[in-house]
């Protein structure tokens, strides 16, 4: 694919941190010269001798590299990243991964849970439009980047697995898990499914695709 280079190792300065919710933040990093990627690809970020892979939420034409990080209590890297001072230099490698958008004549259904929205943010920033997006979170607050991705979707459902009992969901809200929405809200047909987020979601949606949408394609990336 044009613009994608061989994987390399780089050093990059931490430019800013923006909290998206109580436990999730976006890190902006200096873009090393010569670093190119395709929307959906990621980097491996190292700090304190620990390395983890993160999908990029930026577009290939953006000036900086950005990732979305959820703090894992007791985790080896995310608590460190949450506290690192802006200006420090981190090591990274990339680009990594094959979770890219593969155009076809089938309608695209993007399914994300939690920070699994990250590669889709990069795709939308790069011009992807007209897809169906099932974005899952336990609450409305967990729908990271919704303002950015929803307007580009042909159909958008925010699947809230634990809706607050005293608050009505907005029109784009759907009470339940993304896998249940995939089962109940999609008409029969052949689709290209892009799944990103939890292992359980990938497992459940892949099983639903095999059962209800034969002939569909499934691309997936498991985050947690």
């Amino acid at each position, binding site marked *: *694919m044009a613009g994608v280079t061989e994987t390399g190792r780089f050093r990059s300065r931490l430019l800013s941190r923006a909290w998206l919710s109580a436990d999730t933040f976006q890190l902006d990093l200096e873009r090393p010269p010569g670093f190119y990627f395709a929307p959906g690809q990621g980097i491996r970020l190292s700090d304190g001798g620990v390395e983890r892979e993160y999908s990029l939420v930026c577009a290939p034409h953006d000036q900086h590299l950005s990732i979305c990080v959820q703090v894992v209590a007791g985790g080896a890297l995310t608590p460190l990243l949450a506290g690192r001072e802006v200006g420090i230099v981190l090591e990274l490698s990339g680009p990594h991964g094959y979770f890219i958008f593969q155009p076809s004549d089938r309608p695209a259904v993007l399914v994300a849970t939690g920070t699994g929205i990250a590669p889709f943010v990069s795709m939308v920033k790069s011009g992807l439009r007209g897809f169906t997006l099932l974005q899952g979170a336990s609450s409305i607050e967990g729908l990271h980047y919704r303002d950015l991705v929803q307007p580009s979707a042909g159909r958008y459902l925010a699947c809230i697995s634990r809706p607050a009992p005293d608050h009505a969901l907005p029109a784009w809200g759907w009470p339940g898990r993304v896998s249940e929405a995939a089962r109940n809200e999609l008409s029969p047909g052949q689709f290209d499914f892009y799944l990103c987020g939890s292992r359980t979601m990938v497992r459940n949606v892949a099983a639903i695709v095999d059962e209800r949408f034969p002939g569909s*394609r499934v691309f*997936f990336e498991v985050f947690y």
Partner: protein
Amino acid sequence: MKAYTGGGDAGKTSLLSGERVDKIHCRIEACGEVDELSSVLGALVASLSQEGRELQGELREVQADLFRLGARLSTIPGSSAFAMLPLFGEEQTRRLEAAIDRLEARLPPLQGFILPGGHPSAAWAHVARTVCRRAERRVVRCAGERAETARDEKLGDLIAYLNRLSSYLFSVARECNRIFNVPERTWQA
């Protein structure tokens, strides 16, 4: 990257180009043989000591080739994923031919059919050679399938590579016995 998803618990899996196929699909079967081949090569590399350092380097390159070959097997031509894959086939096959020529120049002429065995590394090389032949047969079978998910005119490049790789592994087996001063045994009719 996580070590498991469970997305294949019901016997299906995704190709790199997204198609859902049974785990007994010819491409998946072929990938499995290539995976086994790479694992046997790992045992071969582990059985080589300092004297086999040059071979170790070459064999690790072959293992890297096999990852690329596996990715290629898992991807239907014409897909966007296919466009992202590095070219594979002719260049790697030429490299193997050069390696075979280099080894042959050091080895004594063949005196007959060689019985697999000798030094443990040579024995592993023969096991690898036979697994390689099986992988080759699987890819040939895949190339003959009519199903849309199997059809692929360019599988011929992969078959040529595996064909040459098994020849290379035959030479490697002989080289291992030469390095470790273990006589070759030939079949006596």
